[in-house]
């Protein structure tokens, strides 16, 4: 149990009160934390921040559309073994040599408690989360080839992110703690910006924030700019040496904020 070292955000990551609450609930109840939210709200960053704040190693399992649940547990390299046997290499009898642990296996096998990030779980097949139910519940799995059970020495803290491209199965959801990262309010956003640009001019920040939330508020914008885009934008403005007054009026480097041609056209129209 690790409640004494609660999560309070980290040096580079500003978390809302609710998010910190959810992280601590998940840790206290030893359940995976499922994070959803708009792209660019820092879902993946969260795991890194927790790992930093708690000083624990982070293991990232990136999910792709071809990922199978089995890949996370272990891979039995039969083909290698077959080749080795054909050339009469030593150690072919030792199956364990051909069993390689996946990311989940690695997290279980670690000597200390680690943080396991299962990133973008919705990318995989519909059945994928269900195939992991037992493993995430019991924190163990069995390798029939070597008659070995891999059991977690210390329950890893599991963070799962999803972009909601697929519905996740109910049985899986029931085992998770859920948090939705809402888009940051202006106050929180200012805090986030301050973490990344500690010496930013106040008037510049104010102009940037006003313009940014104004653009987000335009109803006809199709892809709304998010946190990562505003950070890039500030960087661009600083490097470009733009005067504060020009920001709201001209919106320089709008291409950093808006990624679609239609959106840039819309912005042109609204700019007075």
């Amino acid at each position, binding site marked *: 149990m690790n409640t004494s070292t609660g999560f309070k955000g980290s040096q580079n990551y500003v978390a809302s009160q609710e998010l910190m609450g959810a992280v601590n609930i998940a840790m206290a109840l030893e*359940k995976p934390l499922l994070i959803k939210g708009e792209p660019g709200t820092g879902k993946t960053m969260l795991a890194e921040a927790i790992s930093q704040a708690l000083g624990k190693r982070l293991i990232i399992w990136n999910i792709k559309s071809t990922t199978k649940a089995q890949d996370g547990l272990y891979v039995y390299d039969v083909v290698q073994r077959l080749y080795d046997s054909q050339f009469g290499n030593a150690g072919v009898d030792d199956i364990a040599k051909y069993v390689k642990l996946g990311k989940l296996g690695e997290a279980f096998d670690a000597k200390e408690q680690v943080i396991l990030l299962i990133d973008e779980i919705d990318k995989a097949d519909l059945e994928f989360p269900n195939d992991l139910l037992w493993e995430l519940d019991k924190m163990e799995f069995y390798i029939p080839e070597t008659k070995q059970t891999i059991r977690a020495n210390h329950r890893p803290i599991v963070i799962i992110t999803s972009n909601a*491209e697929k519905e996740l199965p109910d049985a899986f959801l029931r085992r998770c703690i859920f948090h939705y990262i809402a888009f940051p309010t202006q106050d929180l956003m200012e805090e986030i910006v301050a973490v990344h640009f500690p010496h930013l001019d106040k008037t510049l920040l104010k102009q940037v924030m006003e313009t940014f939330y104004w653009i987000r508020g335009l109803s006809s914008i199709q892809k709304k700019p998010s946190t990562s885009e505003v950070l890039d934008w500030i960087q661009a403005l600083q490097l470009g040496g733009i005067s504060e007054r020009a920001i709201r009026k001209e919106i320089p480097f709008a291409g950093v904020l808006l990624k679609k041609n239609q959106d840039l056209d819309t912005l042109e129209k609204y700019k007075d």
Partner: protein
Amino acid sequence: MFSSFFYLLRARGLSVSFNEWMTLLEALQKNLHHCSFTEFYYVCRAILVKSESDFDRFDGAFLEYFKDMEFTKELPKQLLEWLENPKDKPKDTFDMQRAMQNNRLSPEEIQKMFLERLEEQKEEHNGGSYWVGTGGVSVFGNSGYSPKGIRVGGTSRYKSALQVAGERNFRDFRNDNTLDTRQFQMAFRYLRQFSSRIDAPKTELDVDGTIQATCDNGGNLKMIYQRPRKNTVKVLLLMDSGGSVEYYSRLCSALFQAVSKSNHFKDLKVYYFHNSIYAKMYTEPTLRTKLAVETDWILQNISSEYKVIIVGDAMMEPSELMGRSFFSYGVRDKTPGIEWFQKFKQKYPHIVWLNPAKRPQWSGYWSHTYDILSELFPMYYLSVDGLEEALKKLLVSR
């Protein structure tokens, strides 16, 4: 403990399981809410609710159970009288836009504004957006609508309080809202039936087969290939164009974009009609006669394995649907529209109707054809929820 809350949540459509409830009790035992009511709300939500589209439902149920906050300071007697017995009856419609502006206010601002108004107000007000009164969109009063505010007297009609749950911030995430192209596209992913029984070269390595064959071959490697698994769904999209659907054109075009961008269909055919299907259909939304095809040709040449989606508001002059020899964009037609619809229904076992409009509240003229067509076809309202339901319906046989 408060297990009636558990049943209330279930009654309000949240599929909270017993396991989750036990998890919540465990969390409360461990004092994860730090004895605070607000934290308690978050603990409940994190454990019991698993999708942001359910947050609003949860907020509603939470408010219902724990009641909304009321203004506790003493109020002028006269003001209360106005509020309890308003002269005008509250209307059902509110200026939503004005009401949403209240969203920007912070609780402190509302408190302050309220105290100011109490000083200023000298008469009764109903409706409107400034004074304390009934049926309006200001942040005070009762029987009105405001996303945030203080209820003053009366019973709450649209429950809003300044508590976290009261903000109902997640209304926009509800599945039953109509939304944008991407969400439509996501929904169209439901329309998948994978099969390897297709005419394609064997290009994928069959690992299990290879291992088996290699063993059979005395350890010499023998590769086995198989056909890839591909989506076999073919879609025939029939869209109403022009006339009364013009009003929903943005929604319809979002749907069209989503369908045409969903490149996972094996085949997609799109035809247009105006109000009702007649002897000819059009290949362009402009309904140009030059580009028309015989509806009979479609029925004969597009096989019944196609899944048919009809998009239209199903509202027209009854005679347009039922009448004979109706003129439509230069096509002289002897068969009434309803018979054409029936032909489609007979030919295609998988057919649904997506309607961007809801059934008109009043019965009679406009809802007449709506009722006839919704009886003939499974009809769904064109929202993300409705679309999902419709697509699921398309995948199962009648």
